[in-house]
């Protein structure tokens, strides 16, 4: 209880909360101007999320990749680097999982585990490449990330077409049933929502992220490098290898997103013209969640719920789902420009002080 009080006294905690409120309020105002009923819109949004067990399950399914994307971005942020290559790492993770799931025969359970490990590895290696280019050749990670995103996409196209093409469609063949990580009985319980083992693995990863960052020597090194590279060097840390390690982990988490989607949700990989965008959502999640495990969990829950609930909004109140995109953008805007909110807090504080005195 005391801890909670202390937490709430910190300004940094209020910034995301106020951002969210502002986003929702501005969203409502825009709906009013557009002639929609914001109350109906928001209530149908909430109804959509909690309307049925199926919807709850599907909302959760929406949240899982966001948590992972948020963590992938957050770990790089904490190390003072920017991973906007999660998109590519997702693709490589999907591809790795698909190859194991489709091209290899293994007994059930083992098949899934191997596919998950390979998917994470593919993503991790793809991420590590970014850091290797950075430390060996001084290439800015933003540039290499974007290039690697496209390279990953085309590698996946080529590989699928060459080895796993499903004739007459623009997608791959399905993975073997033995590689599926869907939890059938739970899915049945949730009326068919696609629930998979990734849900539980994600919880482990969240806790693991917290421990890694705050309790292990590797997390200590990572934070030191992120805060002050010069001091880290002075302290005898190998800044280059820490960067590579960090990007490997970041990429592996990114890879798991694709892995879970392939093994637990879709069972195949589409030959799409573009990447999914989940990696970019991760930037917003990490930002709003202030790169902490709990923050990422909360903010991805919010975004996932909003995304999923937006469908209900257009259904129930005829509001275009783009409004929710706008609300999310406003939240991100204020979370990223905390100066505006700080001013707000300061004004508020001064006022309440005057009233006291």
């Amino acid at each position, binding site marked *: 209880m005391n801890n909670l009080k202390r937490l709430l006294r910190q300004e940094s905690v209020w910034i995301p909360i106020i951002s969210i409120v502002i986003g929702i309020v501005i969203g409502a105002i825009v709906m009013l101007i557009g002639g929609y009923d914001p109350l109906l819109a928001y209530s149908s949004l909430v109804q959509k999320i909690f309307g049925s067990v199926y919807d709850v399950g599907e909302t959760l399914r929406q949240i899982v990749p966001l948590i992972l994307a948020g963590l992938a971005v957050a770990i790089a942020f904490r190390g003072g680097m920017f991973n906007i290559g999660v998109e590519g790492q997702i693709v490589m993770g999907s591809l790795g999982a698909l190859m194991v799931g489709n091209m290899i025969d293994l007994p059930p359970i083992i098949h899934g585990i191997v596919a998950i490990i390979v998917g994470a590895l593919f993503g991790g290696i793809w991420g590590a490449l970014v850091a290797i280019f950075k430390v060996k050749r001084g290439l800015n990670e933003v540039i290499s990330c974007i290039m690697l995103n496209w390279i990953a996409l085309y590698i996946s196209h080529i590989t699928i077409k060459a080895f796993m093409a499903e004739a007459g469609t623009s997608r791959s063949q399905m993975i073997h049933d033995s590689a599926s990580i869907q939890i059938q009985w739970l899915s049945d319980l949730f009326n068919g929502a696609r629930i998979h083992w990734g849900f539980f693995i994600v919880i482990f990863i969240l806790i693991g992220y917290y421990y890694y960052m705050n*309790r*292990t*020597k*590797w997390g*200590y*090194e990572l*934070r*030191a490098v992120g*805060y*002050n590279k*010069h*001091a*880290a*060097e*002075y*302290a*005898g*840390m*190998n800044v280059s290898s820490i960067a590579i390690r960090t990007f490997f982990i970041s990429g592996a988490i990114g890879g798991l997103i694709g892995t879970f989607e392939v093994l637990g949700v879709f069972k195949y990989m589409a030959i799409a013209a573009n990447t999914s965008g989940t990696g970019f959502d991760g930037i917003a999640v990490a930002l709003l969640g202030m790169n902490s495990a709990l923050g990422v969990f909360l903010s991805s829950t919010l975004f996932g719920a909003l995304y999923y609930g937006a469908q209900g909004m257009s259904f129930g109140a005829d509001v275009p789902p783009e409004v929710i995109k706008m609300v999310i953008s406003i939240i991100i805007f204020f979370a990223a420009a905390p100066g505006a909110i700080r001013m707000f807090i300061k004004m508020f504080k*001064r006022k309440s002080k005057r009233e006291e005195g």
Partner: protein
Amino acid sequence: MAQPETVLELKGITKRFGEVVANEDISFALKKGEIHALLGENGAGKSTLMNIVFGLYQPTEGSIWVNGQEVLMDTPNRAIDLGIGMVHQHFKLVQPFTVTENIILGMEPKSGLRTDLKSASSKIRQLSEQYGLNVDPSAKIENISVGMQQRVEILKTLYRGADIVILDEPTAVLTPQEITELLAIMKRLASEGKSIIIITHKLKEIMEVADTCTIIRRGRVIDSVVVKDSSPRELAEKMVGREVRFKTDKSAADPKQPILSVKDLKVRGDNGQMAVDGLSFQVRAGEIVGVAGVDGNGQAELIEALTGMRRVEEGEIDLDGVNVVNKTPRVVGQSGMSHIPQDRHKHGLVLDFTVPENAILQTYYKPELTKGGLMDHNAAVSLAEKYVKSFDIRIPGLDVPVRAMSGGNQQKLIIAREIDRRPKVLIAAQPTRGLDVGAIEFVHKELIAERNNGKGVLLVSFELEEIMNVADRIIVLFNGQIVGETYPDQTNDQELGLMMAGRRQGGDSN
């Protein structure tokens, strides 16, 4: 006779950070045309008080009066509007910009839509001449010296119309020559009617320029004295509340075998030139070798090369029988080298880490602190507590970022950590920069104790007084080379000064 008017008055200022009381019921008055020094131990609350005057912090209690009017100082912009300027210890300049661009940043004069650089730069030139600042408005910040950058900061406050200029430890980063020049500039400003508040730990400077000195101890004003009726001894005693010694007692050195041998060392600076150009010297166990010299003559590069942070082009570094040329900082450290870095914010500390996290910065990976990758938080905390206790470090709390510590206490934390590594050789670069007289005395004692324990100490300092007081042997660096070697009892400030200007020992000019 008309009394000079009071331009700034603080009444009953109290500032609390959570449970920490940084300022308590402080009253303070600044007169027009006065140079007013603030003196106090590390962590006494000087910077906090000035940050309140400049609108960076809000006082918990008390009021601020400018020219007889009570004001609400809620932002630095308000302070600037009221004619108050502040030069922080860490400059806030944009390196690739010119002097003019930096000065007008944020308040660019416009003619139509375009920025009117011409009129700005002529105004800057005129101000610079008026106060004898000697600043070239078109020079780029990255190309001018630290002392010059500081003058740009002063000029910036003047350009914005400051009548009250606050300088927070301005001389800590300057060479003796630059200090003399700064003091002259301050007098000039005061004679033109500007009022100046200067924070400094150097009593000599206070005696030289200040009219009044206000002494703060643990957040409270102890006294405000007229400087010309006082003495350094009185000031120091008021400040620490006990008698202080100015000269460190030390027994004669008893040097043993060489423990650090440097031979024909060549190291490049950032610009690619040889910054260390064929240095050879030795430090013996049980000896403090002082490296004297004007900043920028290869000291930084020498230290970085010795500690593994910069590539050695040629030469040998032998640390008690181990060749440490081009080894990583970790390996060099493990071979027995400790390093108190010159720039504590850049290298010495991670400012966003807590006290325990900084206490373990060099040793976090050792089995006492980490087992199987998991760090032992309690061990780090007890280490930090040990340092805090044995070095009298004043902190607002263990689990706050060291950013919230006063500058001098940050330095003490680094020194405690580096000495605790039980090195064979301790490299101390400007170890007392920003420390109060009491703390300086303490650090000097520690360095001498290390030497008495048979360690080799390499003391790099730009302050002759420190070198003369503490070193057993002195080498003088100029242009990356050693131009002289002497002993404190066989030389004097004049001779050292000449050598530091490049005159080789024995008289032949270089």
